[in-house]
């Protein structure tokens, strides 16, 4: 009798544990499935293509497994030729380095411009804050492409920027801005500024203003207080903002194609050209895989920095 009753309680306990576990699994499962379907499987497909050879066929690459119907066995055909080709050619290395440089410089300027804006928004009254925040997000309501085209007409030889500078007497000749790296920087900084401002704003808004006052009270001049209190406390926001700008900027394709010149070398453009102009899918896939590996480095580095900050 006693045994039976304890058995039943044990059973229900076990069942309860199982349902809890199931619930937990379900919570983890959904994002896992999402990641698998939209990141991991496509990644494997791209990786597979990068190990094959280009050929004129549909699809335009050699199959990984070649089935021989006569002898009833399959041959695994793997080539690292695409990767070797990438490292042998100076062109691809330059494209990678140039992408990283353009992304880094743009990220730096986005930070320099975004920080004061985020600080101002975080310190303004609730009414002004709502208005300023919506102004930051407002550009997203128009097409990204449209905004880049707008920059083209602003930056061209007889565009608004050159006209203004000339009428102010600052320059005699219109500047060649469009189709240079400068135009690419302007385009990236402009486009990605909200991605810098928003995470910065969230960290700065949480910061206790009395900390700045405490620093000043203890003898720190405003600049000193900023460097030793505001900046370290804003570190998580700075890191998040920089990642959100840097990573997409490295692979940016539209901005360098529309605003940059023929000598603006970026890996996104190279990828596009390999894929659509040369129809060399395997090489394009190899370019994409290497880009991913290149980006994992800074992400890991910054994540570690973030952990320390917290």
């Amino acid at each position: 009798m006693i045994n039976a009753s304890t058995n039943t309680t044990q059973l229900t306990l076990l069942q309860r544990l199982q349902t809890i576990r199931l619930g937990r699994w379900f919570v983890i499962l959904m994002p896992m499935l999402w990641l698998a379907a939209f990141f991991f499987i496509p990644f494997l497909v791209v990786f597979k293509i990068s190990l094959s050879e280009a050929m004129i066929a549909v699809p335009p690459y050699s199959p990984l497994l070649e089935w021989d119907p006569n002898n009833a066995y399959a041959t695994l055909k793997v080539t690292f030729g695409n990767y070797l080709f990438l490292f042998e050619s100076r062109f691809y290395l330059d494209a990678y380095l140039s992408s990283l440089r353009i992304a880094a410089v743009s990220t730096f300027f986005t930070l320099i411009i975004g920080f004061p804006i985020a600080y101002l928004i975080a310190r303004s009254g609730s009414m002004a804050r709502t208005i300023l925040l919506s102004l930051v997000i407002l550009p997203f309501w128009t097409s990204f492409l449209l905004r880049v085209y707008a920059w083209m007409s602003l930056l061209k030889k007889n565009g608004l920027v050159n006209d203004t500078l000339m009428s102010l007497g600052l320059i005699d000749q219109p500047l060649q801005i469009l189709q240079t790296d400068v135009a690419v920087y302007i385009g990236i900084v402009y486009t990605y500024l909200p991605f810098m401002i928003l995470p910065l704003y969230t960290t700065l808004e949480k910061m206790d203003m009395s900390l700045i006052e405490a620093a000043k009270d203890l003898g720190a001049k405003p600049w000193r207080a900023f460097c030793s209190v505001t900046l370290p406390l804003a570190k998580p926001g700075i890191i998040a903002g920089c990642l959100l700008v840097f990573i997409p900027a490295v692979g940016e394709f539209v901005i360098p194609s529309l605003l940059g010149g023929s000598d603006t070398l970026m890996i996104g453009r190279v990828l596009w050209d390999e894929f659509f102009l040369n129809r060399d899918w395997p090489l394009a896939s190899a370019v994409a895989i290497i880009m991913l590996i290149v980006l994992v480095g800074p992400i890991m580095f910054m994540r570690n920095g973030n952990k320390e900050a917290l």
Partner: protein
Amino acid sequence: MSVSSVSPIVTTQTMPTWRQKDAEPFVRIEQINKTFGDFTAVNNVSLDIYKNELFCLLGGSGSGKSTLLRMLAGFESPTSGSIIIDGVDMSNVPPWERPVNMMFQSYALFPHLTVEANVAFGLKREGLPSREVKQRVADILEMVQMGHLARRKPHMLSGGQRQRVALARSLVKRPKLLLLDEPLGALDKKLREETQFELMRLQDELGITFVVVTHDQEEAMTLATRIGVMNNGEIVQTAEPHEVYEYPNNRFVAEFIGNVNLFRGTVVSDERDSAAIQCDDTNGLIALDHGISCAPNQLVNVAIRPEKMRIAREPSSAQNNSAEGVITEVAYMGSQSIYKVRLLSGKEVRITQPNSHRDTGERLTWDDHVYLSWDADSSVVLTS
């Protein structure tokens, strides 16, 4: 609250400076005003604070006490008026150059720095050699008994420990004037008491002038050499703690500090050493043992503290200074009991009596008819 047991901390044997007529004030606040838009936070405040004082600014929220403190620290600049600290006009002196340190209500410890680094922050700004910084940080942390937690970050400390670190950080620069904003607000009762005595000891040892802002009258009573009671941006009374309690100069102070029974009446006689007030709530007149320099027939309020009234079943011999009524509420608190009595006129008064004897048989209880009486020197006449 038990106020009878506290006394102001007077460190010197001689007469304290604030009682001397010709003493030079250490902090002089002159006709200071501060407005935010239409709102007047501080209204024409003048105040002298002397060296080695522990001055308490006491008031409710929105009374302007914190704004006044922030003006002393330099975070707000007065709309008009001037602040002079140790002979120097502070009008154009930014916070980082003032000989003043502040302990914030939220403690404002830097969350990204260790206890040590928090305390060292101010000394480093002075550009002291690192050896001296280290020594002074270690000394002050030892003094507040936080030496063993020097390498912790603030989020790993309890409320009381944080408070000690904040105190150490504001003391380490040896400021001439230390400002404390609700220093004990976030602590539990036992810690508060300990810290109160700690603060008084430090003040005694270091000889720093303290200005403390608090809304807690008990805290002000225990800590302060003098109290400035603030209401609606004005200082309504500045006096030593027992004076503020025993001789409030107006109704707000009487009601804000402790409990008080107010009787409304008209002055019927006013001599040099006696006065009498006719009141509808009491049996006879309210007789006083001092003159009040009033116009005859003037309407006044008479304040009598609950513990200064006696309660008994039998009427007292004198007709004056007495009243009678029925007990409506009794609260037994151990060391004392609180009675609420409805007088014949319908007015409710509050009486506290010490339970100095064990149960004397018949204890006063609900619905008992009782007689109240008080001495001629117990009541305070409030004309404003």
